[in-house]
C-alpha cells in the first residue's frame, strides 16, 4: 500500500485503463482501475517514479490509496536486467502459439516495458 499525502505541494500521475490522469490538490473523489504502467509522485520538488503491475486506486479527501499486486521503485530496478527481460519478452511474443500463450506473452511484455520506462522517465 502506498500513500502520498501533502496538501500543498504534491502532484501525481497514474496510468489507468482509460488513459493517464493527473491528480492535483483538491481533486474530485474517484475510484479507478490501475493499468500496468508508471506512477509518478511529485513531492517537495522531487519526482518519485514507480512501475505498477495493475491494481486499483482511490482518490478521496486529498489522499490517494493505491493497491497493486506488485510495485517497484525506479531506483530498485536494475537497468541491464530490465532491458534483458524486455528482449526476452519480445522474443517470447514472436514465438507464442495459441491464444493463451499469446495473452501471457503480451502481459509479460507490457510488464517488462513498464519497468524499462520507469528507469528512462524524463524528469
Amino acid at each position: 500500500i502506498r500513500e502520498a499525502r501533502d496538501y500543498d505541494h504534491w502532484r501525481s500521475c497514474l496510468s489507468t485503463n482509460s488513459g493517464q490522469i493527473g491528480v492535483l490538490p483538491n481533486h474530485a473523489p474517484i475510484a479507478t482501475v490501475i493499468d500496468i504502467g508508471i506512477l509518478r509522485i511529485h513531492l517537495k520538488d522531487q519526482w518519485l517514479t514507480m512501475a505498477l503491475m495493475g491494481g486499483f486506486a482511490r482518490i478521496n479527501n486529498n489522499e490517494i490509496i493505491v493497491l497493486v499486486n506488485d510495485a517497484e521503485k525506479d531506483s530498485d530496478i536494475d537497468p541491464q536486467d530490465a532491458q534483458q527481460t524486455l528482449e526476452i519478452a519480445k522474443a517470447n511474443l514472436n514465438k507464442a502459439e495459441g491464444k493463451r500463450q499469446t495473452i501471457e506473452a503480451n502481459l509479460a511484455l507490457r510488464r517488462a516495458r513498464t519497468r524499462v520506462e520507469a528507469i528512462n522517465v524524463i524528469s
Partner: protein
Amino acid sequence: MFSLSKPILSPVRPTLPPVRCGSRELRERIKTVQTTQKITEAMKLISAARVRRAQEAVVSGRPFSSNLAAMLNDITQRLQNDDVSTPLTHARPVRTVALVVVTADRGLCGGFNKSVIRKALVRIEELEKLNLGCVVISVGKKGNSFFTHSINKKHPFVKVDSFIEIGGFPTAKEAQVIADDVFSLFVSEEVDKVELVYAKFVSLVRFEPVIQNLLPLGEVCDVKDEIFRLSSKEGKLAVERDVVKLKKEGEMCFPLMEFEQDPVMILDAMLPLYLNSQVLRGLQESMASELAARMVAMSNATDNAVDLSKRLSVEYNRERQAKITGELLEIVAGAEALAEND
C-alpha cells in the same frame, strides 16, 4: 589376623535394560547425543525467532487487506441495485474441484506435513464419493514429493496440475503465482470450485489443518483479522491471539465518488487483488504453523536428548564401578589366599 569368612555380594537388580556394548562405544554414544542436543536446541531457537518474523509479515499485510476490504464493501454497496456479475463471483454447478495444498519444504516439524496431507486426502476421498473430479495444486516440497509418488496408486482420478516451491518466507509474488494458476483454471472452466488446504495457526503448540473456499468469491463481509502476538509470559514463550476488528476506513467516503471506468471493470481489477491477499494469508499462516510446530518438535527432541544423555551416563558410570569392584574383589581374594598359606 584376617577374617576367614568371604564377603557375600547380593545381586543388584538392574532398573534399566542392560547396555550391551563396551565403555568406549558408550562414551562415544554419549558425545553423539549431546551434539544432537545442541543442534536441536539451536533449531528450536531459530524457529522461535522466525515465528516472530512470520508475525511481522502478517501485521505488515494488514493495511492492504483493510483498505481492500473497505473499498470492496463500499463498491458492492453502491452496485447493489445493479445486477453485476464478474467471472470470479460466478457460481455454477460443481463438477470439478481444485485443491491448493500448502505444505512445508522441510521436515523436523512433528506431524505438520502429514496432517495437512491427510486433510487433503480426506477431502479427495469425499470428492470421490460425490463423483466429482479433483485437481491438485501442490505447494511445498513435502507435498510435491507426496503427490508425485504416492497419490496415483490410491486415487488415479486425481490430476496434479502443478507443483510450486516457495523456499522461504512467502511474499506477494509467490501468492501471485498461485492466484494466477487458480484464476486461469477457474475462468477457463476447467474447475468449478477452488479450495485452499493449509494449516491455520492457533497457538505455539497447536495448529489446525483447515479447508478454505477460495473461488467462487463469496460476499466480502467485515474483516476480522486474527493476529497472534508472541510474548514472554513468566519467562516462557507464549502466544496471544487477538480478534481485531479492522476499522472501516471507507466511512468518510463522499457520497458523490465517481467511477473512472465501468463498475464491472473496477470489480474485475479489485477481485484478483482480493484473491491474491487470501492466498498470501493462507501461505503466511501455514509458514507460522510450520515454524511453531518445528519449535515444539525440536524442544521435545532436546528434552529427549537430555534424558537419554543422563541415562547413558548412569549406565557408563555403573559399568565403570562394576569393573573397579571386580578388580578389588580379585585383590582381596588373592590377599586372603596368601594369608591362609602363612
